[in-house]
């Protein structure tokens, strides 16, 4: 198993941290992982992304140009990465803010109103990324739900541990919003 993924969105939407959490959780499950951020001046306000590879074997190239899974949280990211989803791969896109949705019909396209759900039902847009991550692991079971929760505990500073239940709820909600692949 080798899953090559990219997460892309505005700086501040949590794309780097969701990728990092997923990679960490997979590492804890004994898998080989790599996480590569974009680190240009786009970090603030512009579009940031991170590539995450998860594999049973040693990862040869940490940098890839075509992906099994693409997660896009803004329009520029969708425009840039829709063509880079491998045939038969999965494209998860944030459908509250992205106006021009994907057009390809040879990939599995998953619209997700993550910003709307996080803002109106969870009352905290900051956990939008966890909601997306929940949907992702339901569609592509690269790690199990418990590993994500453990990863949150391991990586969040103690002072934020009061937010773990909310993050857990976001993950659950994301999982409930999509059907199995």
């Amino acid at each position, binding site marked *: 198993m080798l899953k090559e993924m990219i997460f892309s969105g505005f700086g501040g939407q949590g794309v780097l941290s969701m990728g*990092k959490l997923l*990679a*960490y959780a997979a*590492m804890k499950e004994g898998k*080989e*992982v*790599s*996480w*590569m*951020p974009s*680190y*240009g001046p786009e970090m603030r306000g512009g579009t940031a992304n991170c590539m995450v590879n998860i594999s049973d074997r040693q*990862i*040869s*190239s*940490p*940098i890839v*140009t075509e992906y099994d899974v693409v997660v896009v949280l803004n329009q520029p990211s969708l425009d840039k990465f829709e063509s880079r989803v491998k045939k038969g791969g999965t494209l998860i896109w944030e459908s509250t803010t992205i106006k021009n949705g994907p057009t390809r019909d040879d990939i599995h396209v998953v619209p997700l109103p993550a910003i709307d759900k996080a803002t109106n039902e969870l009352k905290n847009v900051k956990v939008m990324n966890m909601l997306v991550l929940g949907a992702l692991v339901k569609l592509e079971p690269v790690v199990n739900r418990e590993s994500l929760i453990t990863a949150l505990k391991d990586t969040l500073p103690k002072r934020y541990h009061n937010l773990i239940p909310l993050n857990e709820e976001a993950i659950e909600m994301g999982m409930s919003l999509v059907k199995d692949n």
Partner: protein
Amino acid sequence: MGDIKFMKGNEALAEAAIRAGMQGYFGYPITPQSEVVEYLALQEPKHDFVLVQAESEVASINMVYGAAGAGARTMTTTSSPGFSLMQEGMSYIACAELPCVVVNVVRGGPGLGTIQPGQGDYFQAVKGGGHGDYRLIVLAPNSVQEMADHTMLAFDLADQYRNPVLILSDGAIGQIMEKVELPDPVTTKIEKPWASTGKTPDRPRNVITSLYIKPEDMEQKNIELQAKYRKIEASEVRFEEYLLDDAEVVIMAYGVTSRICKKVVDLGREKGVKMGLLRPITLWPFPVERVAQLAAQERVRMFVTAEMNAGQMVEDVRLAANGRKPVYSTGRMGGILPTPEEILDFSLQHMK
């Protein structure tokens, strides 16, 4: 399993330096290397080492010169434009035969360039970027694990040969996060009777200098340095091989590009082309002998080097192959990573 962490390459390098018993760090922040300074600054209160954020790279390398002369395990880290500023100091340190570790997390150049990963500093690293006849031992890590392992090794090699050791990394390996098993801390301290630690009555004065006014003395110093370099060439060549046993096409790459090339080999073999990878781990001393052996083998049709520059290591491969087999060079410049497909297509075209 030991101490397993999920870390950036730059952080793993910084942590390994602490575990190697580094006593003095002198550096100046520059992307994509800044995490080293950040990590060490956070750790400094908990450990027994000195950290100075210098006013420039020129200052950092001279602080390293001073600390190394006093017998301390010392390191500086920078990225390409900063390493250029250090060249005078590198030459002085090499001549004064002082052990230290210098890290260049390379970005795209020339000039102030881009902050994206690059490999354009190969010549500067292995041919001597400063003046005079000198050599650095140059290590080229290609994973977060090696960022840690090479740091431990670099401190040891520096002390063993009293020579500066350069870790030539790149922005990708510095920024990437991977699993790393951290090495155990070093507990033994190496004796450095040559260091300028204050004269005692039982020995003559220790002098640290790179100034030899009389040409006869300067020549003698050069003869000694060259003898040391031959010794290093004889014992410190390191490389990794991947599927070379039956390879007809030998791909050569180092650093992040070597990771990409592992995939090139896999993709090539899926298409029925017998490819293999020879990855120099030490860029100096270069695996000359291994390249020559491969070039002499009938089944080997050609070499392809892949670098993130206009073709620099390719010159060393050509020298080693010595005309016996064609050596082709491919890659991208300006901070762009080549794709496995690009390198594979280039190789296949040259097989026709």
